[in-house]
């Protein structure tokens, strides 16, 4: 499953699932640009890539800012060429019961998790259409399908990503661009480490594989969807959740 000479853009590559995805694509031969929200974060990604032997670097991106997206794409284009693989991974949570949720908690999550998928996908499509080859992989979540109390904002964005994925797949399929989503379950990252044991226990009990998933297990699915091995898969959401939710 070689991604030799492909240029991949992975948002939110500082840690967790995004970091694992960047490393996995890099190991398969892709030139990877991983984004972080700060200069310091971008430098840390570059350092990590150097250590892992991944070609590419970290760059700063605010996924909620259209100008920042345009500037990043310009730099990537000049340095590496147009991205052929986009992984929309950057995401945040601002959990609260709906009755207590502030407008900021709602709109920040929508903007970062959903509107950014729109911005980034739109920005890379031109190059993919010209190349007649492209892979967009959006990171959704099992809660987009199952729902989760305290996450109306987050789960709305993750369900939104699945719908976006299917519609865009229909739009650009004729240009040999595939658009898919990966919906992780309960993965061992900083985001899930924030959960209390009280929240974790029932979730673990509901996982047939009886453990948390590792970021690398998500990354391998993303790599598959990014490769030619997945050339006939589009509009699909692949659930990687240890069986905690089965469609």
């Amino acid at each position, binding site marked *: 499953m070689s991604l030799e000479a492909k240029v991949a853009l992975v948002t939110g590559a500082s840690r967790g699932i995004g970091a694992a995805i960047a490393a996995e694509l890099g190991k398969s031969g892709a030139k990877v640009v991983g984004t972080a929200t700060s200069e310091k974060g971008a430098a840390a990604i570059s350092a990590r890539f150097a250590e892992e032997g991944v070609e590419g670097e970290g760059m700063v991106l605010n996924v909620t800012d259209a100008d920042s997206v345009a500037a990043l794409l310009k730099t990537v284009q000049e340095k590496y060429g147009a991205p052929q693989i986009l992984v929309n991974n950057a995401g945040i949570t601002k959990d609260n019961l709906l009755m207590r949720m502030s407008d900021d908690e709602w709109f920040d999550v929508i903007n970062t998790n959903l509107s950014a998928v729109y911005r980034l996908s739109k920005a890379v499509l031109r190059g993919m259409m010209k190349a007649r080859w492209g892979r967009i992989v959006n990171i959704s979540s099992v809660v987009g399908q199952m729902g989760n109390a305290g996450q109306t904002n987050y789960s709305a964005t993750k369900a939104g990503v699945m719908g976006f994925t299917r519609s865009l797949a229909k*739009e650009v399929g*004729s240009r040999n661009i595939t658009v898919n989503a990966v919906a992780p379950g309960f993965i061992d990252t900083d985001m899930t480490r924030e959960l209390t044991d009280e929240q974790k226990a029932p979730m673990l009990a509901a996982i047939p594989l009886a453990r948390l998933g590792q970021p690398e297990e998500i990354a391998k699915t993303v790599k598959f969807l990014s490769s030619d091995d997945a050339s006939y898969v589009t509009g699909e959401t692949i659930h990687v959740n240890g069986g905690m939710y089965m469609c």
Partner: protein
Amino acid sequence: MSSIEERVKKIVAEQLGVKEEEVKNEASFVEDLGADSLDTVELVMALEEEFETEIPDEEAEKITTVQLAINYINENLA
């Protein structure tokens, strides 16, 4: 250097996969040349590149025939 009209027609033929002689001035991309909506977006992209210009979306939507494309380039590039 070929004329703007020739360059536009060449691009239309290439993008839409039709013969250059079918690309008449009055031809509509969608109705006469079989373009779908994504084809028309790509066509505008190709025109932008050929003529090194940016065509705003609201203008791009109005370019529905070969002649309208030629007119747009003539008016905005000459």
